[in-house]
Structure formats: C-alpha cells, structure tokens
C-alpha cells in the first residue's frame, strides 16, 4: 500500500515544480493540502467504507508514466481550458471535491489542466456537448482528468462524455468532475466507457444542486478493465430532482464498482436511482448506493433500485442499497435483486426456433433496456441500443465510431 502511494509522492517531489509552471494558479492553490491528505491517508484500503469492493492500492501500484499534457480546447462552444474560462473559477474549483479522499486528492495534486464547461444563466445549449477522452500512448500511462461544470440559474445543457482507449497499453485514468447546477437549471450528463481490459478508471463526481434544478446522470460501462465510479449528489435547494441511472455489462475478469451518495439536505426534493448490471464469465460487480435524508428534509421522495443478472456461477455481484432517514414525513424505497437468466423464457424462445445463444443475448439486452429507455435524448438511445447489442455479441470494437480510427 505504502509503496503504491510512494511512487506518486516521489513523482510529485520531482515534477511538482513543472506541474505548477504548467498549471493555472487556481489549480496550484490546493496542491499543498492535497499532498498532505494523500501522504497522510495513502490509498484507501477495503476497510474504508466507500472503497469496500475495490482494491485501490493494487490498481494504482503498476509503474505508470504520468501524463502532464495541457488540454487543447478548440471551437467547442461553452468549453474552455481553465486558464481561459470566462468566469472566476476560484469559487468553484475544488470546492465540492471530497478533501478526505486520497484518490481525489491525487487528482488535485497531479492535474495540470482542467476543462471548464460554463453555461450562463437562462442559456439553453441547443446541441449536446460531447467530450471524448481518448487514451493513447506508447507506454503505460496514468492521466488525471479534471472537469468543472457550471450551470448558472436556469441554464440547460446535455453533456456526453465518452472514454475510449486506442492503444493496447495499461492506462489508468483518474477523473474528478465537479458540477454546480444552479437554481432552475437542467443538466443531462451521460458517461460512456468503452475501453479495454488493460484500462483502469477511477471517477469521482461531485454534484451540487440548487432550488428546482433537475440533473440526470446516466453511466454506461460497456467495456472496461477495472472501473470504480463514485458520485455524490448534494441536493441543497428545495424542489431539486436528481436521477442517477447506470448500466454495466461486464464479462471476462472485468470489475465495475459504482458507489453513490444522494444527500437530501433540504425538503421537497426527489431522487431516483436505477442501476442494472449484466455479469458474465468471472466478472465482478459492486453497487453501493446511500441515500441520506437529513433532519428536516421533509416531503423527500426517493427510490433506489439495483437489479443484477449473473449469467454464470462464477460472476459475482455485491450490492448494498442504503437508506438513512432522519426526517419523519418522507416517501423512500430501496431494494436490490440478483438473479439468473430466466430458464422458462429461455426455453420459450428456443421452442420458437431462436438459438440458445441468441435467446440469452436477447434476454440480457432486455434486462438493461429499461436503463436505455430512460434516456430522454433519442439519438443517444438509438446509438446505445446498437452498442449494447454489439457488446453482447462480442463485436464491439474498442473504437466503435471513433474518428481517429477511421
């Protein structure tokens, strides 16, 4: 554990000056504190509640080259390098991120640039903004990705973030996204991972919502190596609504851990959470979702569901829906299921002439259809149906539809 952390502190001791030179001042400000946190805590062990299902030290142990390349942001409306952002980012940068999380601290320590997506008040972004993260390199590489999303009052935006990997190297991506959804704002944030078995992804999203804001986050892990996604949503203004949906398809030795917190700090807010996993071969899935209804957060409405399909006996799923309520006038539900392919349905389909393989595929696809159908943006929905079908057929190329590979 200590060794794994040491490689990063050693690196920072050498490269800290270079990082500071390359970075915007606002990003340098919290580095000392981040270094202290990271050095003191080290990587979280499985004894740390929120990292119970993932061996962080093991994921960060390999010797990676660490990417320190600044961003190139050209011609994308509303998107800026942090140094070129049209607003003062100091009140936003690193304000939501968990200061006691070593993985987040490591990102704060090593990030050299950040992408700022800023949507001014009353502005409705017409076309979805797509951010493609493409991992490429000649050697094993770690990248630290930082995104700041600021939606002012009544701003509206759809953002699609995709993760892809071009080269067959070990990649470790550690991302932190901070999202400020102002009063009355609406945000649809989609994340789609299609990398490969040698990729490790750590994602930490911190979301703060104002009054009557509506945020929907949909996460698709279609192909990966090791993935650990954290999302903390903090409902701070009355009438705020948050939807957290996710879908995981994993086989071989893939590992996907989704860990969420929805913090109902005030009353009259709604949250809905639906995560579905299809696990095959020896894949391991984990879901831990905590809903916290604070004292006084009356009239909270919250639903949390995690449903899982283990297609083999060697696939494993850990599921932990959690509901903590400190208010007395709320409507909340939470639940999870783990099941196998329905044999009756399988036989029914085979009797109609559908091969066993095809029938299994249709049943798996049917299982996650609910998550795809919940997406309000039709072109993405259609695209995901195609991608999921290809994925289940084992035909998903690692750069499906990617310009760079054509």
């Amino acid at each position, binding site marked *: 554990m200590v060794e794994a952390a040491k490689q990063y502190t050693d690196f920072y001791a050498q490269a800290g000056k270079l990082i500071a030179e390359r970075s915007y001042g606002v990003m340098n400000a919290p580095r000392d504190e981040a270094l202290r946190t990271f050095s003191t805590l080290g990587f979280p062990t499985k004894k740390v509640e929120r990292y119970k299902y993932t061996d962080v030290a093991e994921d960060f142990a390999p010797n990676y080259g660490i990417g320190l390349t600044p961003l190139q942001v050209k011609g994308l409306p509303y998107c800026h390098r942090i140094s070129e952002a049209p607003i003062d980012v100091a009140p936003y940068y690193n304000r939501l991120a968990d200061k006691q999380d070593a993985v987040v601290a490591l990102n704060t320590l090593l990030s050299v640039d950040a992408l700022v997506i800023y949507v001014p008040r009353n502005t409705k972004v017409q076309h979805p903004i797509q951010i493609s993260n493409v991992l490429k390199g000649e050697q094993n590489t770690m990248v630290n990705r930082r995104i700041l999303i600021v939606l002012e009052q009544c701003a509206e935006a759809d953002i699609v973030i995709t993760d892809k990997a071009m080269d067959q190297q070990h990649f470790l991506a550690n991302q932190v996204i901070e999202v400020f959804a102002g009063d009355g704002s609406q945000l649809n944030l989609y994340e789609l991972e299609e990398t490969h078995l040698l990729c490790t992804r750590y994602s930490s999203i911190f979301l703060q919502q104002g009054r009557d804001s509506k945020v929907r986050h949909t996460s698709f892990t279609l192909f990966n190596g090791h993935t650990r996604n954290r999302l903390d949503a903090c409902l701070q203004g009355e009438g705020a609504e948050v939807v957290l949906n996710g879908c995981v398809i994993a086989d071989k030795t893939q590992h996907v851990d989704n860990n969420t917190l929805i913090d109902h700090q005030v009353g009259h807010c709604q949250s809905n959470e639906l995560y579905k996993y299809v696990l095959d071969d020896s894949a391991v899935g984990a879901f831990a979702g905590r809903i916290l209804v604070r004292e006084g957060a009356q009239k909270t409405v919250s639903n949390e569901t995690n449903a899982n399909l283990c297609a083999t006996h060697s696939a494993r799923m850990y599921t932990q829906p959690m509901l903590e309520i400190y208010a007395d006038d709320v409507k909340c539900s939470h639940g999870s299921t783990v099941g196998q392919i329905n044999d009756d349905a399988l036989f*029914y*389909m*085979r009797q*109609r*002439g*559908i091969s066993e393989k095809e029938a299994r595929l249709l*049943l798996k*696809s*049917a299982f996650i*259809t609910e998550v795809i159908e919940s997406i309000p943006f039709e072109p993405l929905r259609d695209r995901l149906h195609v991608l999921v079908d290809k994925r289940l057929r084992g035909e998903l190329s690692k750069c499906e539809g990617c310009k760079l590979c054509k």
Partner: protein
Amino acid sequence: MIMLQINNLHATINGKEILKGINLTVRDGEVHAIMGLNGAGKSTLSNVIVGHPAYEVTQGSITFNGKDLLKMAPEERAHEGIFLSFQQPVEIPGVSMVNFMRAALNAKRQYLGQEPMSAGDFLKLMREKRKIVELDSRLTSRSVNEGFSGGEKKRNEIFQMAMLEPTFSILDETDSGLDVDALRIVAEGFNKLRTPKTSAIVITHYQRLLDYLKPDIIHVLIGGMIVKTGGPELALEIENRGFDWIKDEAGL
C-alpha cells in the same frame, strides 16, 4: 405418410418416471386429441416432444418425418416444423414481440437456407397474421406476453403459430382460461391454418374445443401410458361418463 412416430417412450423429471411407454403415430393431416386426468403425463409428453431440458428420455424413440427428434436441440425441432402452444405462455419483459418474432422467423429461414426477411415484408406479414386471431396491434407492439390477459396470451400463441407455419403443432390446454368468444377465435384461427400437410396434437379436458377442431383420433393418457384410443365419439363418451370406466377397462 407418417409424420410423428413415438415408440415405447419413457421419460423422467428429477428422477421420477412420468411417461411409461408411450406409443403414438400421427400421419400427415391428422389431428389427435389427448385427454386424461391431471398429472397423467399429457404436458410431459408435449414437453418431451419439443425437447424441454428438464425432462430426460430414458427409453424409446421419437422420429419426425423420419428424423431422430431426440438428437435435436429444441430450436432445431422448431425449425423442422414443430410448434408448442404453451399451457402457460411466458412473459418476457424487455423483449418486444416484433424482435422476438423476427428473431424466430429469421432463425428458421436461415436453417432452411433462405435470406432473412426484410423489415417491410416482416411487418406486413405480422399485420396479415394478426388478423387470423384478431390480435390487437397494441399487443404486438409490447413486450412478449407482458401484461397480456390469459385469453390474449393464448391468442398470441396461435398468432405465433400463424407466423411460423409449423407442420406439426401441439396445443397444450390452449382452451384453459378462455371465455367462449376467445375459445372460438383461437379454434377458428387454428382451423384456418390447417392443411392436408399439417398435423396436430391437442391436449384438453373439454369437449368444447374438440367441437371446433374435430380431431380424427382420441387418446386417453392415464398413468403415463395411452390406455385407450378411439374415434371422435370417445371424447363425447368421456364428457358423459368421465374416466373411471376407462380405468376399470384397463385394469388400473
């Protein structure tokens, strides 16, 4: 021509023997009815014919148009022309009727060496076949059997039969749970699909369905064996007298 030939068929489920030596011959164009008490093995027989993996054939043979059926996977049997109208059709949430039927139809076409059907032709075929059982288009745009009433599920079975055009069909208590109108629609639908080259086994407890289907031969299955075979008049006699006299006759 003999279509289906069953010889001395024994079958077990979870080690328990249910079928104890069934002999049955179905020729082209014939409709056979199988009647008998609950638990006699009627559904087991139909499940064994279609290759349900829960049942194990311990003895005997089934040939279909001269081919050894027991060597085939359930889907191959379907491609060869065998269709089971399920006693309890299964709900498959998330799989649309359209995708389900298209997958089934194209699998069969592939087996027969034909090109997949175009989307346009397929939808046209669905519309056409739907009429046979007066199945609402609202139902075919839903997930397979999800939220269908009992009667709608049975109609949907005959609709699927119309789509797949099997040569040999098994109707396993297709009349159970149907009101008189639905029963008539289902039975008339089945009759519309009959040709001199198609045969069927109809499993039922009631004369009413047989009034419509007019089977050629009636079998009585008791205790895993066919104990009596006769013409259509046998069904009427069972309707009037029950099964006890047959049991007595057979010495059971």
